[in-house]
């Protein structure tokens, strides 16, 4: 019961969702659309479960004054305050002057942009240490990266004689070799996703059930 019922549900729901591709009937589409809505609702509910888990994990660390307890407190406070103003704001939370909008544009947006921009420094530093044209493979990697970076900045675009050609070359690299490499990875990924999907539906893959 504890294992069989979830496996039966997995098989049934999986087959129904796969069937959508082969049965182009509006009634069947309504059923799969409904399943999709339920899935999205469940995924949203998993967020709430995640918050409960976050609180369960961090509250003991704060009360017992474990290392970094103060930062955990800041995290939970910012979480609670943002949730509160988001729910109090309701559908109007994003209108001009709303507290949630203020938090979104003055705290969330600059913090997320700066976090990601910080990576630029580390990527550049890592590249400086790792990129050495020791052989043909590494040379191609380095050359393609340098060309793309140079062609996308004003100094590269305005280089005498080669500036315009750099742009064309960068576009060719992005359109041809890069597309070939990316497509091969996409195709490999798609084959992997299909195989994993089949394993889940047939009950061969059970890790999501805690087995």
């Amino acid at each position, binding site marked *: 019961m504890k294992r069989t019922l979830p496996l039966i549900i997995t098989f049934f729901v999986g087959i129904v969702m796969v069937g959508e591709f082969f049965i182009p009937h509006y009634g069947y589409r309504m059923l799969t659309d409904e399943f999709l809505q339920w899935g999205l609702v469940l995924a949203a509910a998993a967020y709430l479960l995640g918050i409960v888990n976050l609180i369960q994990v961090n509250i003991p660390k704060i009360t017992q004054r474990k290392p970094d307890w103060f930062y955990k407190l800041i995290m939970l406070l910012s979480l609670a305050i943002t949730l509160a103003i988001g729910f109090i704001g309701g559908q109007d939370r994003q209108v001009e002057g709303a507290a949630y909008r203020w938090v979104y544009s003055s705290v969330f947006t600059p913090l997320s942009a700066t976090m990601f921009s910080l990576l630029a420094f580390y990527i*550049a530093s890592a590249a400086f240490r790792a990129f050495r044209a020791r052989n043909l493979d590494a040379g191609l990697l380095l050359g393609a990266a340098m060309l793309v970076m140079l062609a996308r900045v004003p100094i590269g675009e305005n280089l005498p004689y080669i500036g315009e050609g750099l742009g064309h070359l960068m576009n060719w690299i992005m359109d041809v070799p890069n597309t070939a*490499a990316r497509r091969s990875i996409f195709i490999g990924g798609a084959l992997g996703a299909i195989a994993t999907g089949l394993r889940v539906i047939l009950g061969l893959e059970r890790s999501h059930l805690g087995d």
Partner: protein
Amino acid sequence: MELSTATLLGAWVSIFLTICILSFLYEDNPVYKLAEHLFLGVSIAVSVVEAYYGTFKPNMLDPVGRAATAVASGSDPGWDAVSVIPLLLCGVLFLKLVPKLSWVARIPIAFLVAMFAGLKLTGEANANLMTQVAESMPNLGQLWIDHGLWDWSADGAGVISGLVLVLGLCACLLHFYFSAPHNRPLRVVSRFGVLMLMFGFGASFGYTVMGRISLAIGRAQELLGLDRSLEQNAVVHPRIATLASIVLLVGVLAVWKLRGGKPESDEATES
């Protein structure tokens, strides 16, 4: 020009938090960790609020509310009554928190995983397999008519590029084919695939770096007030805000260092 106190405060807070995060370039420090945890809390809350108003409410709570109203008034709830099922599944999902009944939560998890597995199975086959394969086969006749062998003005479009694309793709796929030993003929093709992959990875790396750098430029523009009008700058004074934030941050870091503060990695090494 007049700006509300909230807007003015928002601009200063934004600049201060940007400086706090950038302080990590010096080393891991308490101010960075404060901003990092603030970001964590706010970003989780934003995700939850958007999931609630974007999915939870319109797809479940509103239909359930309508169905309840219809039942209370004695009329037929119609299709809205079906929304009770996801409500029940959500309730069952929360049984994960009750150790004795946590196995029941496998039911909604099984539903969720199976739903996305089924969706991805056909979706991936259709979008990422069939479409990618179909798109990769160039129409050489049309390419010859439009661009000839190689058209530099059209970024190298032409028969040669079409062939490089399809042969490169086949070579890359063969490089990942491990069901046959990579002996001489396959090794040569595989080697060509590796070179194409290196080209592709290099280009993707350069593209990603430029994306990150443009974000960094955006942050620098905000710190220097280059993203606002002169009138707004006359009220917000972003450069003063940046300078004040840096001075404050340097002061805090100096005090932290004088009190024997060390980055977390150093503390971990010592212990």
